């Protein structure tokens, strides 16, 4: 009976893990439209206005932001993809300009640490829940 209970609990945990992994595997699949207007907004919403305080280029009305908007629009009209625009901007202004830190050598820990802590927490809790008297 005990064994049975235990395997049942294990099964539940397995289901839980599978569920979590499934959720994790979802990605935001934003479909980029062909309109350069909307595409420009998508890009500028993800860029820091370098001369403002904590604003995106999309939100800002500063000269810098306005000229960036024009530049990005013209780049898109010249047939560049979102990724190409981003990488050219990063090359010019550094990673600081993009709000999405992306995964690179420098940011690996940034992404991994919280997930690692989540797993460690999970192990501690599992131990507590399934500890024998």
């Amino acid at each position, binding site marked *: 009976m005990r064994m049975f209970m235990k395997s049942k609990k294990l099964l539940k945990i397995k289901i*839980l893990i599978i*569920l*979590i992994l499934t*959720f*994790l595997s*979802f*990605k*935001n*699949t934003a479909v980029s439209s062909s309109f350069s207007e909307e595409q420009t*907004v998508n890009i500028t919403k*993800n860029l*820091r206005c370098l001369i403002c*305080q*904590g*604003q995106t280029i*999309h*939100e800002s*009305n500063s*000269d810098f932001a306005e000229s960036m908007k024009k530049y990005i629009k013209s780049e898109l009209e010249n047939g560049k993809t979102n990724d190409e625009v981003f990488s050219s901007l990063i090359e010019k202004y*550094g*990673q*600081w*300009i*993009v*709000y*999405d*830190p992306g995964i690179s050598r*420098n*940011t690996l*820990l*940034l*992404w991994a*640490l*919280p*997930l690692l*802590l*989540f797993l460690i*927490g*999970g192990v501690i*809790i599992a131990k*507590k*829940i*399934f*500890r*024998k*008297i």
Partner: protein
Amino acid sequence: MIISQLGYYSLIFGLLTSIFIFFNSSIQLKKNNPIISDKITGLIGFQFFFVFISFISLIYSFIISDFSNETVYNNSHTTKPLFYKITGTWGNHEGSLLLWLLVLSGVLLGFIFKSRNEPTNYRLLTTLLHQIIVIGFFVFVLKTSNPFNEIFPVQQEGLGLNPILQDPALGIHPPILYLGYVGTSIIFSAALASMISNYLNKSWAKNIKFWILFSWIFLTGGILLGSVWAYYELGWGGFWFWDPVENVSLMPWLSLTALLHCIVTLEKRELFKKWTIVLCIITFTLSMVGTFLVRSGILNSVHTFANDPSRGIYILTFLLVLVLLSFVIFMIYENKNFTQESGIFTLSKETAILINNWFILYFLSVVLIGTIYPIFLDVILDEQISVGPPFYNKLILPFLIPFVLFMSIGPSMKWIKTNFKIKAKSFLVIIFTLILSFFTVYFVGEKNIFILLLFIGFFYLLLKSLDQLREKTKNFAQIFSHTGFSLLLISILLNSFSSKEIIKNIQVGESFTLKNEKIIFKKIAIEKEKNYESIVGFFEILDDKNRIINLQPEIRIYNEPETATSEASIKTTLFKDRFITINIIKDQNFFNVRYQHKPFMIWIWISTLIIMLGGMFAIFRKNKEVNI
């Protein structure tokens, strides 16, 4: 001038009282007196009184525009309305630290009054430990941030207050936020004292819960005010940007929320003692980290008034001392307090609360790492990165789904063991959830399985929370805050997916359309106020049923200091906000007009108020014994 002096000496007296209380309470602790002498209670009263006098003097100096005071000179101006002269008191580094000190000494006074029926040595120890924090802040204020510095020769006119801080919501935002933020200090002192005095039990939990709820409610309110302000003042229609300064207020909120659930378990079942103490320490540490990050000038934002490294170093050192102290106390008294908590946890409320804490602490770690990682990367590798909304969305959103599912079923579990019976009713809730979610996703037009799952989770939480209203023993505190939380998530999600926006450069007389609405730029007028001039744009919106809505966004040009701000004009209805801002384009007749539809905006504020209401229920329910 004389008032400034009064404020300054009042602070010195306050510090002396602190030292006096510190020694007096340690002597009394040794004597093992059965009751706290009136002397100590009186001294704590005096301490608060001195800080209060000092605070009032500063407010007075602001009201009369006493420009011999450096703080007033730097942050005020004679043409400012009275309300902003007063709120200007805490709209700067020195004044806001004085407010810190005021709340810090105030919560101790409150604690001494509220804890009359608790063990004397515990109350004395709390006083003693709290004084360490109080003395630390007194020295900090007097040494690095004295609000009563004099300047000579006396200036005729002040430099003025940053115009974007001249706003009613932001005027009261700091006091409310600080009550929550600094309120956590008494939780910290009391938690350590309860360990030392061997009082870590059910009745401690029951009493300290008041202070946890107190901090939690005010912190929620403070964050709400900040968001409301960001929404209408910053002019782009957002209310949360994962800005470091927003994050540092969210972090103690998260750990307080975890603590709130833990303390109930301690109260009912005497479980999770060690973890509760750790959470108390974490919560206050996060408040201090927040103070450090904001005050040291490390962060680049509106909240950073000063850029003085000595202040940052002081807070950091002081923080390290406090953490070390709590660590040492924790280690010494660990064995005395914590017995092995035995028992296999099964399907029970305890397990549900553990899982709640697991997820909340994960969210906390995401926010913490996202906030401080860039600082470390900058210092160590000299590389600058931005950690913005995409990072938080990716790491938090997927985890929200299992979190809200546990949150939905948690409250219906029983302590120790739950016998789950699946009833037909449960299926009804699930069916309703699915119908609502599909309908919403269809309505929003985002055909994405991930968003569907989010809606299913949120609606399930909403329906399960409301479902509890049918039970015999209702726990309004929990029902309200969980319902509020689910409504908050639903409205944020709806808001972010169905917001619409159009930006046009137009002249007076021209018009444009968004969806089925026509936006007409009628005219422009110039108005003169006491401390600013404004250019007001008159707009008429013709909605799909041809009703007219008038909106009047402004561009304000403040005189002192000379700054232009853009004031949004917002028309709120139950289902959507209409939000319009204008900006001048240099050397042209055109205006840059930004018109937005922000759906369910009002529900974001209402649901946060419902969450706070839940907290208030918990405070006033005290005497009735109800299961959480």
